[in-house]
């Protein structure tokens, strides 16, 4: 397995489309609730996707600045930083939940 320390959209040829969804303050910082974007197919984990997103702009780097507090769901199921995103079509990012 290759470690992607500096994955960049410019150096990657193969991409696929995923739906990204953001909630609560993650949504406010990114500036949108949902977007369909092309991501490099060599991104393997949630953590790698977050690192890649942080390079897309200041709004993303602000939203994911404290990546350790961000929670993720893959196709509407809770996931962790090392979860594989290979089969996910809908990837959601949000703060720890505060319902109830």
């Amino acid at each position, binding site marked *: 397995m290759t470690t992607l320390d500096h994955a960049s959209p410019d150096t990657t040829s193969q991409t696929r489309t995923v739906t990204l*969804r953001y*909630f*609560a*303050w993650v949504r406010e910082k990114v500036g949108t609730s949902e977007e369909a974007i092309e991501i490099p197919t060599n991104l393997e984990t949630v953590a790698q996707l977050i690192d890649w997103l942080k390079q897309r702009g200041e709004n993303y780097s602000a939203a994911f600045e404290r990546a350790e507090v961000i929670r993720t*769901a893959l196709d*509407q*199921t*809770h996931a962790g930083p090392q979860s594989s995103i290979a089969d996910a079509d809908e990837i*959601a990012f*949000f*703060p*720890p*939940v*505060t*319902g*109830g």
Partner: protein
Amino acid sequence: MAVRVQQENFDIGAEIAALTNSRTDIGAVVTFTGTVRGSAGGAPITTMTLEHYPGMTEAELGRVEAEALERWPLSGTLIVHRVGELNPGDNIVLVITASAHRHAAFEAAEFLMDYLKSRAPFWKKEARPDGAADWVDARETDTVALERWSK
């Protein structure tokens, strides 16, 4: 066995009646109702707005309910959670558990609330009288509450 996410208020008595309707196998019904506090950290709040993740919320509540049904002999369960803008004093969440005996109903109700608070994708935002609003931080005590249920 049902989960609902809705903007409108719920009627606790009507929900209990619907769940226990003409059944004679139920000997215990426990309800928990969560309501909006009028202050946060000693400062007053004017409204609380609940955001959620449509689709995942229902799926996650369903998983939590299925887990409870696996652990306790329950005759019926209901989870209702409100979303949108709420005022202090308003109902937020209702959990009902019904069983032949009280222990299962009490325990399952606590379990459902502990799991819901740490897993269901809801987020609260509190507005203050000056117009500013803050997202509520997750509480460490909620995570601790969950740990006691680990098998």
